[in-house]
C-alpha cells in the first residue's frame, strides 16, 4: 500500500515537473502592438493572431486599438505600446515628438487616400477643377488624407488660401458630406468606399492621381527597439508572412477582412474589399529592403517619400523643422530578418 502511494506520488511529481518544463519552454514574451481598427493595413495583425503565428515565434501580443493616428502616437509617450502600424503622416509626427522609428512600410495607400465629391457636384469638379477655388473642403488635419488632398490641390495649381479647409474627424466628414452640408472631403479607405456605396459620392483625385506617394508605416519605440531588437525583427517577420498569406489566399482573405472590418463597424461590399487588394500594393521582405536601401550614403525611395511628407507638415505649421529621414527611418530590423535564415524563411511563407 505504502509503495503504491509512493509510486503514485512520484509519478504525479514527475508529471508536474514535466508540465513545468514544458510551460517554461513555451513561455511567450509579451509585446504590445497598436493599430487602428477596420483598416486594410491592420488586417495582417488580425490574421496573424487568428493563425497563431505570433506564438510560433514565441511572442504574445497585447493589442491596443486607437480611433486615429494622433492618439496612438500620443499614447506611445506613456509606453502604452512597443510596436505598431499607422499612416505615414502620424508616424512622422511621432518621429518628431517621441522618437518613434519607422521600421517598415505597411502598404502603398496612395490610391486609398483621396478627395471625394458628392454625387451632385462630382462631375462639375472633374470637368473643371479650377471651380474648387472658393469651396470648403472638410478633412482630418495631420493625416494621410490631408496630405493627399493638398497634393491634389497642388496638382491643379490651387493654393491652400484659395479654399477653406475645415478639420474634423472622419465620422464628422461622412455626416457632413452625406447630408449635403459639405461638397468636398478628404477621406481614406474604407471610408471612401462607405461614401461611394451609401451616397454615390465619387473619388475625384487620389494621392496616386496627384503623384504623391502615401505609404503606411510600421513603427517601433526607439527605446524598445534598442532593448529588444530581436522582438522587433520577429514582429516584422510575422507581419510580412501575414501579407504573403493574404495575397496568396484571396477568398479566405476577403472573408477574414469582412469579419475584421465588421468588428470596427465598417460594412462595405465585397467588390470594394477586393479593390483594396488590387489598388494598394504591399511589400514582401525583398521589396522592403529594396525600397529602404540607401545607396552609398544617398537617400532611399522611402526616404524620398517621407521627406516630402515632412515638408508638407512643416508647411502646415505642425512643427518648425521637418525631420531628416535618415534619423528615424531604419531598415536595420528588416535586415535582421533577412540575416536570420529562420526568420527569413518564416517571413516568406505564404501558407
Amino acid at each position, binding site marked *: 500500500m505504502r509503495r503504491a502511494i509512493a509510486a503514485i506520488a512520484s509519478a504525479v511529481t514527475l508529471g508536474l515537473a514535466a508540465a513545468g518544463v514544458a510551460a517554461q519552454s513555451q513561455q511567450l514574451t509579451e509585446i504590445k502592438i497598436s493599430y487602428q481598427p477596420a483598416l486594410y493595413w491592420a488586417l495582417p495583425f488580425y490574421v496573424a493572431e487568428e493563425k497563431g503565428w505570433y506564438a510560433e515565434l514565441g511572442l504574445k501580443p497585447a493589442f491596443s486599438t486607437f480611433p486615429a493616428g*494622433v492618439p496612438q*502616437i*500620443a499614447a506611445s*509617450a*506613456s509606453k502604452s505600446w512597443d510596436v505598431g502600424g499607422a499612416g505615414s503622416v502620424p508616424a512622422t*509626427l511621432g518621429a518628431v*515628438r*517621441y522618437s518613434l522609428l519607422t521600421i517598415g512600410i505597411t502598404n502603398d495607400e496612395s490610391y486609398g487616400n483621396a478627395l471625394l465629391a458628392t454625387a451632385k457636384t462630382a462631375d462639375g469638379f472633374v470637368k473643371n477643377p479650377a471651380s474648387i477655388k472658393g469651396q*470648403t473642403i*472638410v478633412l482630418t*488635419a*495631420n493625416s494621410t488624407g490631408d496630405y493627399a488632398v493638398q497634393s491634389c490641390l497642388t496638382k491643379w495649381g490651387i493654393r491652400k488660401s484659395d479654399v*477653406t479647409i*475645415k*478639420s*474634423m*474627424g472622419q*465620422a*464628422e466628414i461622412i*455626416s*457632413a458630406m*452625406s*447630408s449635403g*452640408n*459639405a461638397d468636398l472631403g478628404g477621406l481614406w479607405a474604407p471610408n471612401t468606399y462607405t461614401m461611394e456605396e451609401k451616397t454615390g459620392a465619387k473619388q475625384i483625385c487620389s494621392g496616386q492621381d496627384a503623384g504623391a506617394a502615401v505609404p503606411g508605416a510600421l513603427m517601433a519605440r526607439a527605446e524598445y527597439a534598442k532593448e529588444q531588437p530581436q522582438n522587433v525583427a520577429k514582429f516584422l517577420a510575422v507581419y510580412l508572412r501575414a501579407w504573403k498569406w493574404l495575397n496568396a489566399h484571396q477568398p479566405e482573405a476577403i472573408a477574414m477582412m469582412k469579419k475584421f472590418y465588421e468588428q470596427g463597424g465598417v460594412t462595405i461590399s465585397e467588390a470594394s474589399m477586393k479593390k483594396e487588394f488590387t489598388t494598394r500594393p504591399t511589400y514582401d521582405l525583398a521589396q522592403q529592403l529594396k525600397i529602404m536601401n540607401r545607396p552609398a550614403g544617398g537617400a532611399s525611395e522611402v526616404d524620398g517619400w517621407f521627406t516630402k511628407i515632412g515638408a508638407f507638415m512643416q508647411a502646415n*505649421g*505642425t*512643427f518648425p523643422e521637418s525631420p531628416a529621414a535618415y534619423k528615424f527611418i531604419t531598415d536595420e530590423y528588416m535586415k535582421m530578418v533577412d540575416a536570420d535564415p529562420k526568420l527569413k524563411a518564416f517571413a516568406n511563407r505564404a501558407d
Partner: protein
Amino acid sequence: MTRSHERRPVWGGVVTFVVLAVAWYMLTTLTNTIGSGRFSSPAETWDALRQIAFAGYADARLAEHILHSVKLVLLGFAAAAIVGVPLGLAMGASRGFEAFLNPTFLLIRPIPPLAWIPLAIVWLGLGDAAKVLIIWFAAFVPAVINSYSGVRSIEPYLIEAARMLGVPRAMLMREVLIPGALPMIFTGLRLSLQACWTTLVAGELIGAIAGLGHVLYQASLDIFPAMIVVGMGSVAVTAAVMTVGLSWIERRAIPWRQA
C-alpha cells in the same frame, strides 16, 4: 439659497499660484521629471503664447480666436436664456404646465451635448447654427431649473397678498414673480454661462475655422501640449471676465440683494 461671495484673503490665491509656478518650473525645466512630451514647461508655454498672440496659430491670432468664441458663447447664452428662463418660470408658476413639459425635459436633459454633434451636423450643417445648438443644449438646462426653483421659492404670503388685492395675472408675473425669482434666475444664468464655456470646445469641433475650441483641437492634433495649456488658460481667463460682467449686470438688476 446662494450667499454672497465671501471675501477670502487675497494672499491665498497669490501663494497658491506662486507655489504652483515654482513647482511647475522645477518639475519640467530643472529636473525634467515631467518630460517635455508629456507636459509643457513654463518657457515652452510662454513661447506658444507669443506664437499665437503675434504670429498666429490654427489660422488666426489669439485675439481673433477669442472674438470668435465670445460670439458663439453670447449666441448660445442668449438662446439659452431666452428659451430657458421663460420656460422655467412657466413651469414654476403652473403645475399643469410643469406636468406637461417635465417628462420631455427629463428625457432630453441627460443626453450629453457632445452626443448631439452627429445630429447637429446633418440637420444644420457646419456653420454657427450647429455649434450654437450644441452649446444651447448644455446651457438651457441650468436656466430652466433655476428659474423654476426661483418661482417656487417665493414667499407664499406675497402671492396670497397680491391675489387678495385682485392683481391681474400679467401684473402678478411682472411685479411679484419675476422680481422674486430674479436671484435664482441669475444663479441659473451664471451656471448657464459656465456651461456655455465648457461646451464651447465640443461645439467648435464642428467645422470651426477660428476659436479657442478650434485652437485646442488643432493643438491636440499637433500633439502640442504647450498650446493646449495656452488654450485652456485663454478659455479660463475669458470666461472669468465674462462672469464678472454678468455679476455686474446682476448687481444692477437686483440692487436689493446685497452682501
